[in-house]
C-alpha cells in the first residue's frame, strides 16, 4: 500500500477510482473542482473505465447519477455550497428512490456575501433528505470513508445514498501522506455493484416512483427511517471489515478520544478534530479531565454511542461550524436531544466557530475548555460565538 502525498480532494478522486465508479457526473465549483478534474483525468487516460458526464448544472449532476444508478451503475459526484443547494431537490429523489450513490461534499459557506471558505451549513441544510452523512477529519479519512461509503450505501438493507463531507482548504487542499490501499484489497472489500429488485430492466418492466396515495405513501418514509437505524450497525461492520483488510480502523459512527473518565467532553465534526485532540492531550497533562467525542456520522445520528461516550461527563461543549438561525447549532440540537432522550443530567454548551472560514487557534479551544472546566461560562442558553469580532 503506497503512501502518497494527497490533498483531501485528490484522496477523494483516488477513492472513487479504487471503488471502480462507473459514472461520474459533475459540475465545477470551488473548492470541489479538483476531485472531478482528477477523475476526468483518470477516465481520459484509461486508468478508470467509467463515463464522465460534463453536466450543465449540479441539479443535472445528481439527476444523471440517479439515472445511472437506476439502471445499475455505481455513480459518484461531488459538489459544495451553492452547488449542493441547487442540487437539493435531487438529493431527496435519490434517497426516496433508494439509490446507492456516493457524493463528496467540500463544505463551504453560503452566499451572500460570497465566501469560498469552510463551514458546515451547506451539508447540514441537507440533513433530512434521507442521505447518510459522514464528516471526515483528514485526507486519509476522506479516502477511507468514500470506499466504505459505497459498501454501506449498497448494502441491501440500507440502500440509501451517502455523503462524505470534508472541510474546504483545511482538508480539501491540504496535502498529507495518505495510505492508498491496493486495488485488490478494495476489490475484496467492495465487490462489483449488484443488481437490485428496483434496478430498471427491460426484461422485467415496472414503473418506478408512481403516484402513491395516502394509504401507501407513509410506509416508504418509514422504510427510509428504518434503514437509517439499520445503517448504524452496517457502518460499524464496514469499519471493522475495512480494518481487517487494510489494517486501519478508519470509520464507525463516533470517535471516543479519552472520554471514558472525562468530566468535560468536547464534541465536534470535521477538520477541527485534530486540533481538539492536541488540546485535550495538553490539558490532560495539566490534570484537566477532558475528552473529545467526534461525530463521524451525523446521519444516522449516533445517539446511543454518544450517550455512552458522555455518560460520566458533567459538562458538554458542542462545537458547531453552522448555525440554525432562530435556534442554535445543528450538532448541539442533536446532542441536547440525545441527553434528553437518554435521561442524562448534563450541562450542554453550544459554541459556534469557524463560520465562513473564521480562524480558530488551539489557544482559543483551550481557553474555552478551561473556562468551562472552571464553571466560568455563561448560562448554557447563551450561545457562544468564538472569535466573533465586536459587533
Amino acid at each position, binding site marked *: 500500500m503506497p503512501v502518497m502525498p494527497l490533498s483531501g480532494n485528490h484522496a477523494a478522486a483516488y477513492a472513487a477510482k479504487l471503488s471502480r465508479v462507473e459514472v461520474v457526473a459533475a459540475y465545477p465549483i470551488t473548492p470541489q473542482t479538483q476531485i472531478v478534474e482528477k477523475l476526468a483525468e483518470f477516465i481520459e487516460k484509461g486508468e478508470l473505465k467509467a463515463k464522465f458526464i460534463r453536466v450543465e448544472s449540479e441539479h443535472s449532476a445528481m439527476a444523471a447519477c440517479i439515472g445511472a444508478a437506476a439502471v445499475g451503475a455505481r455513480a459518484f459526484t461531488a459538489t459544495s455550497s451553492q452547488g449542493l443547494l441547487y442540487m437539493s431537490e435531487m438529493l431527496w429523489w435519490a434517497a426516496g428512490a433508494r439509490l446507492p450513490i456516493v457524493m463528496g461534499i467540500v463544505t463551504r459557506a453560503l452566499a451572500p456575501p460570497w465566501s469560498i471558505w469552510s463551514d458546515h451549513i451547506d451539508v447540514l441544510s441537507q440533513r433530512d433528505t434521507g442521505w447518510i452523512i459522514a464528516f471526515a477529519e483528514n485526507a486519509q479519512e476522506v479516502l477511507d470513508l468514500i470506499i466504505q461509503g459505497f459498501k454501506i450505501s449498497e448494502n441491501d*438493507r440500507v440502500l440509501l445514498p451517502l455523503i462524505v463531507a470534508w472541510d474546504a482548504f483545511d482538508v480539501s487542499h491540504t496535502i498529507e501522506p495518505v495510505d492508498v490501499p491496493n486495488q485488490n484489497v478494495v476489490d475484496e472489500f467492495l465487490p462489483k455493484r449488484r443488481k437490485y429488485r428496483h434496478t430498471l430492466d427491460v426484461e422485467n418492466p415496472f414503473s418506478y416512483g408512481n403516484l402513491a396515495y395516502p394509504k401507501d405513501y407513509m410506509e416508504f418514509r418509514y422504510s427510509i427511517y428504518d434503514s437509517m437505524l439499520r445503517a448504524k450497525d452496517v457502518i460499524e461492520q464496514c469499519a471493522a471489515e475495512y480494518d481487517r483488510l487494510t489494517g486501519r480502523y478508519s470509520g464507525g459512527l463516533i470517535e471516543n478520544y479519552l472520554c471514558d473518565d472525562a468530566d468535560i467532553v468536547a464534541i465536534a465534526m470535521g477538520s477541527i478534530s485534530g486540533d481538539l485532540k492536541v488540546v485535550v492531550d495538553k490539558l490532560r497533562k495539566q490534570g484537566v479531565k477532558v475528552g473529545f467525542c467526534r461525530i463521524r456520522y451525523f446521519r444516522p445520528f449516533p445517539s446511543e454511542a454518544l450517550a455512552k461516550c458522555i455518560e460520566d461527563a458533567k459538562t458538554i461543549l458542542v462545537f458547531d461550524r453552522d448555525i440554525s438561525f432562530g435556534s442554535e447549532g445543528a450538532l448541539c440540537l442533536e446532542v441536547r436531544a440525545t441527553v434528553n432522550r437518554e435521561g442524562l443530567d448534563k450541562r450542554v454548551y453550544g459554541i459556534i466557530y469557524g463560520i465562513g472560514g473564521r480562524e480558530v487557534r488551539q489557544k482559543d479551544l483551550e481557553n474555552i475548555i478551561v473556562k468551562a472546566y472552571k464553571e466560568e461560562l455563561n448560562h448554557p442558553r447563551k450561545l457562544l460565538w468564538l472569535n466573533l469580532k465586536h459587533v
Partner: protein
Amino acid sequence: MKEVLMPIAYPTKGSVGNTGLWRTLKPVINYEKCTKCFICWMYCPEAAILAEDKPVILYDFCKGCGICANECPVKAINMIKEV
C-alpha cells in the same frame, strides 16, 4: 421491516380499475356499415378497441370519449346513452 420498501409498480391492465364506468356515452359499432378500415382502432387513446377480424370495443375500459365515432369515415359508430 425486513426489506427495503421500493415504489415499484407492475404493469396492470386497468391500473385504475374498470374505466368503462366513467362513461356517459357508449360507442356502438354498426358492423353492417363497418368497412374494417380500423381507423377507430388507430385513434383510440385508451387502446380499448381490439383489432380482431373486425374492430371490437372493450367496454370494460372504454371511457366513451367518442373519438372513434367522430373519426369513423363511414359513420358506422353511434354514441348512445348508457342506461
